[in-house]
Structure formats: structure tokens, C-alpha cells
């Protein structure tokens, strides 16, 4: 894995005088320039986005709390904190719900389902990725929320002593848990599809060796498939998390979000997410309010940056063990 890039183009011994072509071929030069050029272009695009964000957010970040307060928005950091919390909290629950299911589905498709069916089953799961977020929003408010409301009521009545399920159960079902379920369904196909590819890449020999030692199917998976695919799985989960953190429309439509910090999952008083809050307020915003909302976008940006950095650390630690060779 780490040494994929070190392959020398021509293998010549050091003692042999170089034949005719130690110089790089034209095709190679063009190709490598093209690829590094597009990498560079990405940096430029991102710099442009970041510059825009920073410049636009700057007035809200530096203006004094009093200025913001007179406009009725409150001091910036205490204002944005509940939304940042809501973003992380809802995405966390989405991951808790989606990751085991996704890995299960990926294993089912790659290692359990009849081989002839596998492709079709994978396709069925990918269908979920075909559903636009607006439709998830519609489905979440119109179908899922009313359907889950009695379950929440039940959980609240009988398990209400657990702080997570405490408080006063929502009368409409548009709770943080519902939003997390919708988010989980939305990130499921992404995680599943990547995990599937990763699990399929497990060397056949590793698996056959485990089976030859008398391991059951699950033991084979535990010994050969999962460790091999760990880095890929973490990457897939992080990609899913990225989507969950930034999801706008579905959360905006499903969640009954307010400006609070609240760990409870079943009430109608939930922390809103940053992305949904921006979408809900941007159209009516003007003046410094726009700067404030963009600054909130910047906060979201920073959150994803931190989480992605952590993910990178995890991946680089595991990649030493996996290795394509």
C-alpha cells in the first residue's frame, strides 16, 4: 500500500551502463504533468472556495457581540455552538445506525448471497443513492415521522429513565432520531458500495487459507476479510460521515430544529444542524446576517476538517498492516 508509487520504470542494474533511454518518454511526461496539473487545479478551486468563505465570514467573526446583538442574533460563538453540536450529534447517530448495517450488507452481498444474485442485490442498495435528498425529506416528514411517533412514545414511557429517551416525547415524530434515521438511510449506499469493493479485493488465497484451517465462514471473514479491508472501511465510513455532516435539504425538512443543546433524542426541541440552519435562513438574510451565516458555514467546514484529519490518522495507522502485497 505505501510503496505503490516507488516502482522504477526501467529496471537496470547500477553497474550496467545505461542503454539508450534513461530519459523519460514523452507520453510519460505529458501524462504525469496532466495528472499533477489537475491535482493542482483542485487546490486552486479549494483556495477559491476557502477565500470566498473567509472573506465573507470575516465581518461576522470580528464584529463585536453588541453589533450582532442589536440585530437580534446574539454573540457569534454562543449562537453557532448549538448548531455545531446538532450537526455532530445527528451525524453521530446516523453513523451508529448506518455503519453496522452497511458493513452487514456489504458482507452479505460479497460473501453470503448466492453469487448470481450478488450484482442485483448490490444494485438494489444503490437505488437508495438514486433518491434525491428532497424526496428523502418528503418521505421523512410524511411517512417516517408519523410511523415512528408511537415507537418514540413507547420508548419515552417505558425507557424514559434513560436520559437519551427522556423529556417530553414529540407529538409529530420529527425528532433528532428520525433525522438520524433519514441520514443513515442516505449514507447507507455510499458506505455499502465502497465496503463492497474493498471486501471483494481480499486476496482469494487469504480466505482459502483460513477455510483450509477449518474456520467457519464468519471466522474467515473475521480473520481475512475485515482486517484486510479495515483502511478502506474507515475511509468509506468517513465519506459517509462527510455526507451526513453536510446534508442540507432532508434535515431541514425532517428535523424540528431549534437553537438548543439537547442530548435527548425523542423530543421536539432538538438542536438544528448548521447546514439546515443556513438553508433555512439564507434566503431571508441581508447585511451582516449573511456574513454570520457564511461564518457558520466556515464552522461546519472546520468541523469536517477536524473529523477528516482524525480519520486520516486512523487510516494511515491501519494501512501499515493491510498492504496490497
Amino acid at each position, binding site marked *: 500500500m505505501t510503496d505503490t508509487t516507488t516502482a522504477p520504470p526501467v529496471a537496470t542494474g547500477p553497474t550496467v551502463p545505461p542503454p539508450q533511454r534513461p530519459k523519460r518518454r514523452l507520453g510519460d511526461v505529458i501524462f504525469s504533468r496532466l495528472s499533477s496539473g489537475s491535482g493542482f487545479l483542485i487546490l486552486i478551486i479549494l483556495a477559491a472556495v476557502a477565500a470566498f468563505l473567509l472573506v465573507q465570514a470575516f465581518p461576522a467573526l470580528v464584529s463585536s457581540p453588541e453589533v450582532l446583538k442589536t440585530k437580534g442574533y446574539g454573540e457569534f460563538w454562543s449562537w453557532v455552538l448549538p448548531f455545531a453540536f446538532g450537526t455532530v450529534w445527528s451525524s453521530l447517530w446516523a453513523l451508529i445506525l448506518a455503519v453496522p448495517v452497511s458493513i452487514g450488507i456489504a458482507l452479505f452481498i460479497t460473501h453470503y448471497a448466492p453469487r448470481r444474485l450478488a450484482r442485483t442485490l448490490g444494485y438494489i442498495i444503490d437505488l437508495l443513492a438514486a433518491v434525491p435528498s428532497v424526496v428523502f425529506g418528503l418521505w421523512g416528514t*410524511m411517512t417516517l415521522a408519523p410511523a415512528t411517533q408511537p415507537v418514540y412514545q413507547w420508548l419515552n414511557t417505558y425507557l424514559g429513565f434513560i436520559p437519551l429517551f427522556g423529556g417530553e416525547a*414529540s407529538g409529530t415524530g420529527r425528532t433528532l432520531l428520525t433525522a438520524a434515521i433519514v441520514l443513515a438511510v442516505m449514507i447507507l449506499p455510499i458506505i455499502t458500495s465502497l465496503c463492497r469493493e474493498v471486501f471483494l479485493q481480499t486476496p482469494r488465497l487469504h480466505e482459502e487459507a483460513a477455510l483450509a484451517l477449518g474456520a467457519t465462514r464468519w471466522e474467515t471473514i473475521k480473520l481475512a476479510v475485515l482486517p484486510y479491508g479495515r483502511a478502506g472501511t474507515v475511509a468509506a465510513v468517513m465519506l459517509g460521515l462527510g455526507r451526513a455532516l453536510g446534508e442540507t435539504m432532508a434535515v431541514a425538512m425532517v428535523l424540528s430544529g431549534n437553537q438548543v443543546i439537547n442530548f435527548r433524542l425523542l423530543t421536539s*426541541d432538538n438542536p438544528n444542524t448548521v447546514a439546515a440552519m443556513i438553508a433555512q435562513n439564507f*434566503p*431571508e438574510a441581508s447585511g451582516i446576517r449573511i456574513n454570520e451565516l457564511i461564518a457558520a458555514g466556515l464552522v461546519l467546514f472546520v468541523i469536517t476538517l477536524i473529523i477528516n484529519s482524525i480519520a486520516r490518522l486512523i487510516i494511515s495507522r491501519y494501512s501499515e498492516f493491510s498492504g496490497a502485497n
Partner: protein
Amino acid sequence: MKITKASLALTAALALSLTACAANEGTKTTASTGGLSGTLAGKGSSAMSAAQKQWITDFQTKNTGVTVNYSPDGSGAGRDGFTSGAVAFGASDRPFNDSEMGVGKFAKCAADSNALNLPVYISPIAVVFNVTGVDKLNLDAATTAGIFSGAIKTWNDPKIVALNPGVTLPAANITAVHRSDDSGTTDNFTDWLNANAATVWTNAHSGTWPAAYAGEAAKGTAGVVDTVTKGQNTIGYVDDSAAAKLGKASIKVGDAFVQPTAEGAAKMVDASAQVAGRAANDLAFKLSRTTAGTYPLALVSYALVCQQYKAASDATLVKAYIGYIASADGQASAAKSALAAPLSSALQAKVKTAVDSIK
């Protein structure tokens, strides 16, 4: 790999080469009626969206050479879009305030011209409810404020019972639904609460829901209607045009309880005073929320235009389009399809004078 790229390129090329057309859109070569042509862009209030759709349809049918695009992005977007010159007219649920007005501040307007705020759309806001076994409900501002601030928690609270003799109210919890997005509807609703029950509703009016008051939040008018309809023992506030199938509370004005009506809302505007210190043709109002004999819980949207445009083509189209909107025909059309309250004939005349003065 090449195949993928090639097929994508092919798809794109195909999409481009197809002479896309829509069955209901005539080819532009046919002689246009009405003598006008061009594209007019407007942006703003989403409350006005349904009415704008109707007006655009009427206007485009009469003037086939014109395309009017209205983006219901929100009032803030409308004000900014008009100020920055992105659109030729804006639409906002409140007039420009004094600090936003000013000669030369507007990109589409001539250097020595100010903007005009013209009221063109009045719509009553209904307090809607969905309570088991209740089909009529009376509320006053103080009780409504109590419900929406969370002070009154159940339907059989003595304060609600006192206003509704003879109605059996359930002992159920109230789910009060408010807008999660920044909106003119919330702004007008909270203004009414604050004007009539300042001791209970202590926050000044604002387009965003005050963070101190919890409750169920839903996105947009459609979201509030859906939540109130799907939920149990719910109450919310929406534009009257969207409230068709829900119970509407009668609100207390003076000594009487009144249902939302178009006439009541129009009367409220007539009873309001114009904002002082504006040009003769600027028709910004400071709405009166307490006058008896009116329905004071209503929203007034303004068309934001220039007194004098830089480009004559903009002026011609805006005059024709806004002129139609404010005419008796335009108001009647919106009243029919969007259940808006038509401007009173006196106000119509004032707006007409203002539109005629646009250059």
C-alpha cells in the same frame, strides 16, 4: 475508461444537439402580441410565490414576447438582489427601512433615483389547528402568545376554556408548530403578538423564531401545514391561502372574534399610516395591529422598483408588469388563484399613480 468518457461526452453532445422544445411554448418566431418583448427578472418573497405564478401566466399570455422569471428565494434575497442590481424588481414582506433607502444606492436605478416600495400583495395569516373533536376555536393574542411561548401546555388550560364556552377541549398536550426558516409570516405573526400582548410576548417582532421559545419547528409554509395536519393536537400559523383544509381559529380584535378574511386584511392596510419622511410615490406602511373592525394578523408584500431606471427597457417592462399586478384585474386574478386580499380601490389608485411615475 475511454468508453465511459466517450459515452458521457456523447450524452452531453446529444443533449446539446437535440432541439429541445416544450409543447406549450410557442416558437419565438411567431409574432408576439402585446408589443413588448424581453426577459424580466424578479426575486423575493416566497409568500407571494403562488400569486406571482398567476400574474406571470396572465402577463405572458397577453405579451407572448415577454418571459418573466420570479425566484421565490425569500424577501432578504429579494431586497439584496434588487439593491445589487441582480434583478429589475424585488419583492419583500417588509419595505426597505430608512437606512436601506437612499439615492444612488440601487444598481439598476439611475444615479439620482431612489427606490419605491409599492404594496401589491396582502394576505391574511391564519392560526390553524388540528385538535381531536374541536372544529371551532377562539383565541386572543395573550392566549396565543402563551401557547406559542410554551406557558400554556394543554388544550384544556383554563385560559383557553374561558374563551371557548361550550367547546369540549381535550386534556392533551399542545404541539405548537412554528417556522424553522426566517420568514415574513413569522415576522408579522410575532409583531401581532407583541403589539397586542406585550406582557406575555416580550420579544420584539423578528423573522426568526426566538430561541427562548421551544416548540415544534417546520420548514416553510408547506412544512407547517404538513406538520399540523399529520400531527395530533397541533396548532400553527400559515398564510391563509395554504390553510384550506385545516381549522382556523378566530382571533379577538376589539371585542369581537374574527375569522381571517380578505376584506378584513385589506381594511387593516387602509387603517395603517404611511411611513413618514418618504417620497410622495413611496407607499411604505407602518401596519396597525390593533384596529377594531379589521383582521390585523396579515402580511403585506411590496414590489421594490426604481423611481427611474438606468435602462429604458427595464423601465418599460417593470411598468407594464407591476402596473398589471396592481390593477383591478391583476388583484382579482391573485385573489382567485392565491386567495390574496385585493388592494382597496383607493390604494390601487395610489399604486397606479406611483407606477405611472416610473421612468
